[in-house]
C-alpha cells in the first residue's frame, strides 16, 4: 500500500474541530482503526521530546560546522561569494525535496533524518555568521590589534560578541526550518509530531489538527526562547539594535537584510 497525502474528502468541518483537536492532545482515546490507544498528554510529550531532540541535535551539529567556518571566513575576508550564495541555494531547495532525496538516495532512520536536517540548518548559520563578522567595525579590530591581541583572541573577544546578533538571527532561521521539517520524520521511520499527520488514518482528523496546533505552538516558543537568549547574550552596548556600522563598507554587493529575519 502506498500511503497518499491526506487528500481525503473532508466533510465541511467547523470550529468544533479545534475543540476536538485540543481534546485529542489531552485525553487518550481509541484509534480510528481500533485496537490501540492514541493521543493524550503522555504520547504527545513523547513525540514532542523526540521532535525536539532531533531538532536540537541537528542545529547543534550544524552550529559546530558552520560557526567556526563562518567566523574564520569572515575574519580573513575570504569566500564571500560562497558564504552568501550558500543561503540563496539553500532557500531554493524545497525542504520536502531534501527529505525525499535523503529517503530515496541515502536511507531512512534517525541518523539519516538527522543528516538531512543538519544539511538544512547549515546555510543560514554560515551566511549569518559570515555577514555578522564582516559587519564588525574595522576600527574595533584595529584597536584590538593595537592592543596586542592575537588573531584567535580578536575573533573570540571582539568579532564574536559584535557578531552575536547576526549569528543568533541565523540560529533562529535554522531552528524554525528544522522544527518545521522534522514533521516529515515519520516518512523515514522517525517518530515526531508529524506522526499523527502522516498516520492520519489511525489518529483521525482530531489527531491531525492537534498535532498541527502543538507543533505550531512549539515552533513559536522555540523562536521566543531564542530571542530571549539572544538578548541575554548580546553585550549591553549593542542592545539598542543599531545596524552594524562596518557592513556597508566591507560587503558592498551583499543584500545584508536578506540574511536576517529580525
Amino acid at each position, binding site marked *: 500500500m*502506498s500511503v497518499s497525502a491526506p487528500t481525503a474528502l473532508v466533510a465541511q468541518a467547523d470550529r468544533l474541530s479545534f475543540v476536538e483537536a485540543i481534546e485529542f492532545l489531552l485525553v487518550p482515546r481509541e484509534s480510528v482503526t481500533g485496537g490501540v490507544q492514541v493521543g493524550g498528554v503522555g504520547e504527545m510529550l513523547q513525540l514532542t521530546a523526540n521532535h525536539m531532540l532531533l531538532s536540537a541535535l541537528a542545529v547543534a551539529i550544524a552550529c559546530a560546522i558552520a560557526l567556526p567556518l563562518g567566523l574564520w571566513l569572515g575574519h580573513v575576508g575570504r569566500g564571500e561569494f560562497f558564504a552568501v550564495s550558500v543561503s540563496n541555494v539553500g*532557500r*531554493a531547495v524545497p525542504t520536502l525535496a531534501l527529505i525525499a532525496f535523503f529517503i530515496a538516495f541515502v536511507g531512512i532512520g534517525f541518523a539519516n533524518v538527522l543528516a538531512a536536517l543538519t544539511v538544512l540548518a547549515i546555510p543560514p548559520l554560515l551566511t549569518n555568521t559570515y555577514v555578522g563578522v564582516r559587519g564588525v567595525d574595522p576600527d574595533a579590530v584595529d584597536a584590538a590589534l593595537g592592543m596586542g591581541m592575537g588573531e584567535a583572541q580578536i575573533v573570540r573577544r571582539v568579532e564574536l560578541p559584535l557578531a552575536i546578533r547576526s549569528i543568533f538571527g541565523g540560529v533562529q532561521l535554522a531552528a524554525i526550518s528544522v522544527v518545521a521539517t522534522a514533521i516529515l520524520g515519520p516518512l523515514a521511520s522517525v517518530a515526531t509530531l508529524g506522526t499523527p499527520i502522516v498516520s492520519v488514518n489511525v489518529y483521525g482528523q482530531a489527531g491531525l489538527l492537534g498535532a498541527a496546533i502543538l507543533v505550531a505552538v512549539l515552533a513559536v516558543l522555540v523562536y521566543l526562547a531564542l530571542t530571549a537568549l539572544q538578548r541575554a547574550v548580546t553585550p549591553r552596548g549593542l542592545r539598542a539594535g543599531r545596524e552594524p556600522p562596518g557592513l556597508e563598507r566591507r560587503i558592498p554587493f551583499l543584500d545584508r537584510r536578506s540574511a536576517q*529575519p529580525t
Partner: protein
Amino acid sequence: MSAVELVVAQLEIRSRRGGTCVSENGFCPGWIVDNLWRYVDPLVQHVILTVVSVAAGFAIAFGLALLAHRRQWLTPPISAFTSVLYTIPSVAAFLLLLPVTGRTTLTAIIALVAYTQVFLFRNAINGLGNVPEDTKDAARGMGLTDREVLWRVELPLAVPEVLAGLRVATVTTVNLATLAFFAGAGGLGAQIYQDITFRSNVVVAGGLAVLLAAACDLLILGGQRLATPWRRAAVA
C-alpha cells in the same frame, strides 16, 4: 470460484525476472523523458500558487509599509507579527486552515501570503526609510508636496530594496509551495510525496522546483538591474 479457472485470461503477464532501470530504482533518463508530461500539470499549479501568493503578498505588504512609513510607531508591532507568522511551520499552517477555508487552493494561498510578509514588509519599510532626510528636504525645497516626494523620490529609491525582498519572498514561496498539497492545492510537492522512494521521480519533481526558484530569482534580479541603472549593477 472454480468456474473462473476455465476462463483463460487474455491479460499479458509480463516477465519481470530481469531488473529494469525503473524496477531497480535507479536514475532512469529513459523513463523521465517518456513521463515528463506527468509533471506539467503540477508545475503549472506550482507556478500559479507562487505568482498569486507573491502578488497578493506584495500588495498587502507594500500597503502596510506605506502605512507604517507615515506612522512610524506601527513598524515594530507589524514587524513582530510578520516574524511570528513566519515561525509557524507551513505544514501546520496548511492543516490548521483546512477547517476554516476548506480543502482548496485558496487555503494554500492564504498561508503562503502570510509567509511572504516578513520579507516583503521589512524590505519595503527599510527601502522607504532609506532616503536621507536632506534629499527629502531638498525635494520639498524644490516645491514638491509630500505626496510627490513619495512618488518621485522615496519610491524610486526604495526599488532596489523592495526588489531584493521580492526575490527572497518568491524563492521562499516556491519552496513552501511544495508542501501546499497538505491544503489540497497540488503542486510539485504532491508529485514528490506520492512516490517518495522512487529516485527518478524525486529528482525530476525536486529538480523542477529548484529550477523554478532559480528562474524566478534570476528574473527578478534582471528586473532589479533594469529598474535601477543608476546604482552599481553589482548591488544584488
